[in-house]
């Protein structure tokens, strides 16, 4: 398919937004479900964008940045794979095969970007010394440009230099055993993401609830929404019945005395 100039511009703009979103982690524009859908919308094939987005979202479910630890990059992966799948008329499996190496490359880029921003931090120290409020605001927000460009420039290059023929040529050069293997692996790579979430929760004594969900869903054919409702009810019952939460008065005073800072301040 032919890509028009306005589409190139829109992709560039959205890639900037997704790049900023990947560091802000607020509106989730960098997540596959959103990013692939928007790229699909821009390229006139929103259906493919949504399905690819849903597929990649599941794989990336546990990709999260906790503290200073960096996860694979979903922004660049979603955008590049959506462009190539739609422009090159590829199937969703090809999208997964494209997305994962790109996510690794994006991770390197974002680590690089977050190192560059140390410079902005130091410039802010000097701006504070000079009491320059405007410059402080500017430095904080302009650091986003680094993140925007690290996604937008690769996306722009791919959009401009790739066409249906070259995408097909590229993907056809991959041996069948590799594409077949990637297809198979796409089914269970999600496990890494699940493991990331489970480890982050860090509450070993609550793991029985994980196994409960597993066993119920292995044998019952409910929708995800109804499982969510069951989980909510289970959580509610557990916290309601837990003796730990039965005497809030007593525990609150004990905790209050262990925070002398609070007592000092409460006198005024």
């Amino acid at each position: 398919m032919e890509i028009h100039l306005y589409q190139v511009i829109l992709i560039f703009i959205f890639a900037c937004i997704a790049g900023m979103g990947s560091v802000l982690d607020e509106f989730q524009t960098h997540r596959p479900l959103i990013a692939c859908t928007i790229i699909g919308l821009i390229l006139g094939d929103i259906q493919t964008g949504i399905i690819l987005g849903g597929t990649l979202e599941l794989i990336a479910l546990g990709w999260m940045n906790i503290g200073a630890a960096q996860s694979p990059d979903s922004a660049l992966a979603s955008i590049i794979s959506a462009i190539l799948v739609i422009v090159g008329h590829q199937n969703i499996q090809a999208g997964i095969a494209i997305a994962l190496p790109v996510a690794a490359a994006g991770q390197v880029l974002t680590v690089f970007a977050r190192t560059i921003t140390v410079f902005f931090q130091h410039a802010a120290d000097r701006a504070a010394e000079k009491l320059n409020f405007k410059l402080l605001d500017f430095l904080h927000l302009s650091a986003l440009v680094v993140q925007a460009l690290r996604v937008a420039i690769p996306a722009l290059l791919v959009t401009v230099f790739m066409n249906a023929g070259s995408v097909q040529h590229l993907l056809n050069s991959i041996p069948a055993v590799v594409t077949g293997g990637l297809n198979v692996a796409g089914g269970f790579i999600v496990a890494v993401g699940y493991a990331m979430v489970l480890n982050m929760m860090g509450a070993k004594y609550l793991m029985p609830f994980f196994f409960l969900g597993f066993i119920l869903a292995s044998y019952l054919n409910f929708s995800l929404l109804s499982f969510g409702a069951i989980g909510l009810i289970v959580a509610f019952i557990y916290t309601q019945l837990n003796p730990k939460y039965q005497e809030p008065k007593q525990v609150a005073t004990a905790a209050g005395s262990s925070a002398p800072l609070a007592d000092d301040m409460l006198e005024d």
Partner: protein
Amino acid sequence: MSEAVKKLTKKDLFNMFVRSNFQQASFNYERIHALGFCFDMIPAIKKFYKTDEERRLALKRHLAFFNTTPAVCGPVVGVTAAMEEARSDGEAIDDGAINSLKVGLMGPLAGVGDPLIWGTLRPITAALGASFALNGSIFGPLLFFISFNLVRLALKWYGLTYGYRAGMGIVKDMASNALTKLTEGASILGLFVMGVLVTKWTKINVPVVISQTTNQAGVKSTMTVQGILDQLCPGLLALGLTLLMMYLLKKKASPILLIFALFGVGILGYWLGILK
């Protein structure tokens, strides 16, 4: 000067709320959200301090290391603003008190925020959205975007205004049971749904044939490894793989490395014909 003049107005608080949506804009490996926190505080600093020296000191105070889950930064920003207000009114609050309060709150808040936001809210809204998106429905991405952001924005706004109102009282609230209860409840929901997803949405198939028998009626029945495993419990391999990944991640294996390793397993297994 009367206190009322210096109070933050709703407009100031809204300004700080908007700013807190850019909490991680200058995320850097040296001081993480340091500049972001200072950026949130600027409207308050301008309001409370009028002399250059006071303002300079206040800015510097808030360029110190800070890091928490971005969605729950509101209460810390709010309570810090309340402390700065008291300080500008002549209360004896030194830099150390303000900084130790920030440090003292950011850890416990991340302890609530990470399981709540990254462990429960996002995986669940994203998985729900994806379940619709897999059928090509626009409802999927919309559901995820709207529901996640509604909760997140509410947390930011109410967190900020609550922190500002509660002031130092927040320390007492933080130590109370309500927060542990919320974290524990959210963790249970998150873990439960993860268990569901592991079995429902992981696809592993080992079609290796173990035996082939033909019964008297002439019907051929094949017994595969997958068939036996499914008889034990469907999703057993997915569960084992997830537990293995948890173990390896704890041993400091990088996630992207594991992803590529699983790629390798997929290709090898497909080539050998033991995975399909």
